[in-house]
């Protein structure tokens, strides 16, 4: 039987699992942020601190046969899917034992064994791929659902709506998840997006829409279960999760940015997803501390491992291009 939201809140195993996933994402992102400053990570990193509940709740509701595609801010999704933090950190550090062999980096994480099909860094570009993955699942009768994450910055890309249309037309087993973190780099949603938002736009395509508090992981999880269940029956949906990134867009952007006030960031920090779950699930401070210490040790170990791992050898330059 499907538990109610209250039932979920009483499920302490679920709460502990989700708590640990969110804590692991948080620590990983903090370490990645610092490792960039210390020169271990090149290029840039986009961390998802503040948005952990969306990744943990959505992906926590999936089965092994389901697939995930994400975007440039995708570390959290990979971690929630069980991609080992060693291989993830090694990828960020450009090592050959990284999840993409050191050739993808922070913006291109793939773990095919876990159904994590990749993260596309052109905004909105992953969305039609999810429709295609769902089409394959449908035609093969595989029963799997594809979940694709994108940000509020993607909701004004035409291809997103072309994809909603295909999903509606062909009854595809897909869930489109908009992580509305309030800003597309520096552009507030209100200045970029006309009308009531992406979930409301989904209705025009005859597909389901959900708007969810993205800081409440149990609410996200509950919505995800329902959306995924429907998708499995050929009823696609859009889930808009209202969330916030505490840090800047990328490492090139100061933590609070020049486009938002400190008070706004502080107000969102008061609605921290990890603290909210601890309170709702009645997690004891001792239990929470124990998890925090465990994930911290895991991430420390991952960074030490990544620092010591080898860079790709020259043959990798020409490997895996074509043929």
């Amino acid at each position: 039987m499907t538990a109610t939201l209250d039932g979920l809140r009483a499920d302490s195993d679920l709460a502990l699992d989700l708590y640990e996933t969110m804590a692991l994402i948080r620590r990983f992102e903090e370490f990645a942020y610092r490792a960039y400053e210390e020169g271990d990570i090149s290029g840039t990193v986009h961390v998802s601190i503040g948005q952990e509940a969306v990744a943990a709740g959505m992906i926590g509701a999936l089965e092994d046969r389901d697939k995930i595609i994400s975007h440039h801010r995708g570390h959290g999704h990979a971690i929630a899917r069980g991609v080992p933090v060693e291989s993830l950190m090694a990828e960020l550090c450009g090592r050959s034992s990284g999840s993409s062999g050191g050739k993808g980096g922070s913006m291109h994480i793939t773990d095919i064994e876990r159904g994590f099909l990749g993260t596309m860094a052109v905004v909105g570009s992953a969305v039609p791929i999810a429709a295609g993955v769902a089409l394959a699942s449908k035609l093969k009768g595989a029963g799997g659902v594809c979940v694709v994450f994108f940000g509020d910055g993607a909701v004004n890309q035409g291809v997103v709506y072309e994809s909603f249309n295909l999903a509606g037309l062909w009854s595809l087993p897909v869930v489109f998840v908009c992580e509305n973190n309030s800003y597309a780099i520096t552009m507030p949603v209100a200045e970029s997006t006309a009308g009531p938002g992406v979930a409301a736009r989904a209705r025009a395509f005859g597909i389901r829409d959900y708007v969810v508090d993205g800081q409440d992981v149990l609410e996200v999880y509950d919505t995800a279960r329902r959306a995924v269940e429907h998708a499995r029956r050929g009823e696609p949906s859009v889930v808009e999760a209202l969330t916030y990134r505490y840090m800047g867009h990328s490492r090139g952007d100061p933590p609070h940015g020049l486009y938002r006030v400190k008070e706004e960031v502080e107000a969102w920090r008061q609605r921290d997803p990890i603290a909210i779950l601890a309170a709702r699930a009645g997690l004891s401070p001792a239990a929470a501390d124990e998890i925090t210490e465990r994930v911290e040790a895991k991430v420390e170990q991952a960074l030490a491992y990544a620092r010591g791992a080898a860079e790709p050898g020259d043959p990798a330059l020409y490997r895996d291009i074509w043929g």
Partner: protein
Amino acid sequence: MIATGSLVEEVTFVEAVCAAQRDAMAEDDSIVLLGQDIVAGFPFGATKGLAEAFGSDRVLNTPISESATMGCGVGAAVAGLRPVVEVDFAGFLYLGLDQLLNNAAKMRYMSSGQIRVPLVVRVGQGPLGSFAAQHSQSLHALLSATPGMAVLAPSDAQSAYDCIRWALKQQDPVVVCEDLRIYRAKGPLRRSAAPSVGARQARAGTDATVLAYGAGTGIAARAADRLSRDGVEVQVVDLVSLAPLDVSAIAVAARSTGRVVCLADDSPFFGVGPTIASIATCEAWDVLAAPVLTVSAKPVPAPYSERLEAQVYPTEQSVEVAVRQVVDWVED
């Protein structure tokens, strides 16, 4: 009706395209077709009868959404199908290029081989005749300059069939550039389930070499026939595959005569012709008897007027003039 088995039949280029898809789909039920009006086989008949033969799960009409259609093809390929995305005119392909160039061509590399994208894109290229600038384009150079895809340019019915059968057995993206000028050209077809698609000598000759592809191969062969009447014997090499490019075949062909003309139907600036010419020069500089010449299209958008359009693309005459130039070249 096209005969099956090892019989040789006269068919048009586009009938061969259709036959290749039909034969491949009968063998491999992971092949699905995506495109506009493909159930009806409109506008050229390249998918005629396939919806009736294989059903609506395998021949899917798409809305006019080139970007999502290409992306859907990418996703379906990633997830174990073999999609063929049809794009009637190269001008429409621009809308799908983010999916093709950023995703299909790069996902394998970015994932160190975890992801494979066995996507086939069929795209109509070149002028159909007075269809004006947006419907008359050649994107071979842009496509071939993007690592991660194969780009094929068949030159006749047999080569079209072979390219599509071959493409549908690869594990990585293949774009088949179908030249609209030769869609209705008839030629012999012998069906083979496992053809090869390398560069081939379309005509033997010892006085000069023309390197061509697509419709250019036929143009070069006809120019060679004219020159033969004057005792000039021209070798024509049909490159077929622009990516990967068979550099050693270019080297052998260029070195065998030392007098080379490169034929292309795109711009002389940053186009296919200058690239092939540069490779031929590098590979044969020590035996070249004349500078390598290029015959390209005029660097103009395709005009509507028949009279003007006739001046844009290489012709038998322009190839003949270039061949005579390299043959008559004398070092000072």
